[in-house]
């Protein structure tokens, strides 16, 4: 009898660790890195990591929603570049920076909605549709900009480089986006519907959920957040770069997966997990810079981390089953 009780207790601990495994991995990573280099734990460095994580974090939140609904969005990097370019051109043509930024973000949302329409209404595979739009909008960006960066004329620098107290403004944007999306996913009908559609589209539709509309909206959110992320980068650099966001879809997918989203079945994943996932990538990048790891190695290490994350995920789900 006492044996059983003990088992229950240790089982409980194991379950807690499994449930919050990405948080534990992040913690472990931080402890290891801070032992290797004391600089790591300085406030400036931590804020540095947070600011660098903003870009990927915001995109990853949108990506996670798409993955949870059972899809994928490869076009985020190109949408980011094109929307930023739109903002840049609007500023060049005299639109006030703030409004140019808002229009750029909305524009990203519209592109997302178009992808969503194709995916939901024509029942096309999301991988292919967003692969196509990734190519289309990268091309458009190059065509329109002629391959040259567009200056933002210091109109919105605060959004990228500003501080509130000692906290970089982009970090505050990330936190606000996270809180809003956490709320949407956990406390609204729409969020429930996203989980339901990802979990089982047939059941969702027979439960009275408007599957098509919600799918379209989710791709819209992904486009919107990608554009927001792009405008933050551009604001910091004070220019819209035509090659901005190249390959960002991979980091966003990685963050979502490390944070517990499943590529093989929808309906799984949390906003908290995704934020932690993007911070794991952020800390890793930062640590490798501090430790002077060669950039070539950095890329490979990131790949290994993704692999390890998914292996741990598989093993722990297996433990849970047995």
């Amino acid at each position: 009898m006492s044996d059983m009780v003990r088992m229950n207790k240790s089982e409980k601990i194991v379950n807690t660790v499994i449930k919050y495994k990405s948080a534990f991995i992040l913690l472990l990573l931080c402890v290891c890195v801070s032992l290797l280099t004391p600089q790591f734990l300085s406030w400036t460095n931590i804020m540095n990591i947070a600011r660098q994580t903003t870009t990927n974090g915001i995109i990853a939140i949108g990506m996670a929603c798409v993955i949870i609904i059972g899809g994928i969005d490869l076009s985020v990097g190109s949408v980011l570049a094109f929307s930023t370019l739109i903002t840049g051109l609007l500023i060049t043509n005299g639109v006030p920076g703030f409004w140019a930024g808002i229009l750029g973000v909305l524009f990203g949302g519209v592109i997302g909605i178009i992808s969503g329409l194709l995916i939901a209404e024509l029942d096309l595979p999301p991988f292919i549709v967003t692969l196509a739009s990734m190519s289309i909008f990268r091309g458009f960006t190059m065509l329109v900009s002629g391959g040259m960066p567009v200056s933002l004329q210091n109109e919105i620098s605060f959004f990228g480089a500003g501080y509130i107290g000692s906290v970089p403004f982009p970090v505050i944007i990330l936190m606000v986006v996270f809180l809003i999306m956490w709320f949407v996913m956990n406390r609204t009908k729409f969020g429930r519907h996203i989980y339901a559609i990802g979990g089982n589209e047939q059941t969702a539709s027979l439960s009275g959920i408007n599957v098509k509309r919600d799918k379209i909206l989710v791709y819209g959110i992904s486009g919107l957040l990608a554009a927001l992320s792009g405008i933050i980068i551009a604001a910091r650099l004070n220019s819209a770069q035509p090659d901005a966001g190249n390959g960002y879809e991979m980091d966003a997918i990685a963050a979502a997966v490390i944070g517990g989203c499943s590529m093989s079945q929808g309906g799984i994943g949390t906003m908290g997990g995704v934020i932690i996932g993007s911070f794991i990538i952020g800390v890793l990048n930062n640590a490798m810079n501090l430790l002077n790891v060669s950039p070539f190695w950095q890329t490979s290490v990131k790949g290994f981390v993704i692999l390890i994350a998914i292996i741990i995920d598989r093993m722990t789900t297996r433990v849970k089953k047995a």
Partner: protein
Amino acid sequence: MSSSHAMEDYILEVKDIRKEFPGVVALKNVNLKVKRGSVHALLGENGAGKSTLIKIISGVYTQTSGHIFVNGNEVDKMTPKTAMKLKIAVIHQELNLVPQMSVAENVFVGREITTPVGTVDFKEMERRTGEILKQFKIELDPKAKVNDLSIANQQIVEIAKILSLDTDIIIMDEPTDVLTDNETEQLFGIVQNLKKNGKTIIYITHRLGELEQICDEFTILRDGEYIETGAIREHTINDIVALMVGRDLKDQFPYTKAKVGEEALRLEDCSRKGVVEHISFSLKKGEAVGLAGLVGAGRSELARCIFGADKFDQGKVYIEGKPVVIDSVRKAINNGIYYTTENRKEDGIFQNASVNFNMTISSLNDILTKNVIVKRKENSLTHDMKEKLLIKTADMGVEIKNLSGGNQQKVIFARALLTHPKIIILDEPTRGIDVGAKAEIYRIISDLKASGNAVIVISSELPELMGICDRILVMHEGKLNGEFAKEEAAESKIMQCAFGVMEEESDV
């Protein structure tokens, strides 16, 4: 053949098996003795421990204590590999086939026969598959694509696969659950042939009517405990049910006539091209109407149209006398209609989501305050449902896939009830669930009627329909082909009607 001294010749003996999972004892002191060359039924309600026992016998789980003897020799540690060596194999409900491949390729999948050059020798595989099929008098073309086969024939491919391994003990887990009556007959024929060829079969089923037809002996488990073993011949079905449930199920179908009120639903000449034609009927509050018919007669399709998941091309639908156009599921729900599907797993539940999530997904508006989900409201609603429908789960936060089939079904019922429906369409509400849970489902249907709901029940089990419904409508090839009041419903008449052989009833 060894079956001549069947009296003492046990091919498989399981003694005092105990299996503990963290916090739960799944099996305690379970015994099973299976005679060589017999068909042995393993019976029990869901959660009685049948699957755990099967997993121990096939080496998936290791018992906490107890012994397993195969051919009289004790097996030290059963693993899937030793099970295979000892010629034990399980045919699961979910088939393990590659649909794009041929029968022969599936039979030899993973052990392909190769030519001296190293390429796959399709001819030889087909020849050997043909031999196996012939030996057991199975008519199936080794070259046929599995994709093109019926579920029944796919199951047979699975059996052929096992036979090609020269298996002695074949465990079949609810094989007839997905089969039509004809297919079931065909499967029984094959089981008889297997038996004639000296194979031993452990047969798990919920369809007790099948026992007399093909089983020799039975063993009953209840709540993880061994209850009894006996010869089928010496027991009535009622005895067996009583042993399984642990109480006398005198009233298998708790029917009470409810107060019939005004008209709830009326269909006038409704059609959907190629699916249902000229359907007209009406349904009153407090009434349960059964929809009988063969698989493919258009019953579920009709239900889907009423529910707005599909659309009628023509015809009129009235709810409480008012004409309505229902072109989406949402609209149906808002009009007080709910439909629970026949395939729980495929389109009934969200497997990885919690019980709470599964229950409230169609009625989220009721747990909102200013568009925000209030967990407290949700918990109290779902808790009430849990009590009302006697749903067995320790925690409403667990993933629904951890619940038994019967409890999953009750959660879906709860989902329906939370939308406050006036008209409820239940498609195969008792498929794949055990006797005890079935009785509870019938009780719920009875309660629904009593509280003034109109209920449509679609079921392939005629006794069930005749037991619980006030009226039975029979469909044949997309048309309503007959109607029987409870008093005049007889199985033979309904079947004739379902097969389309009864002429005089054709105008409804």
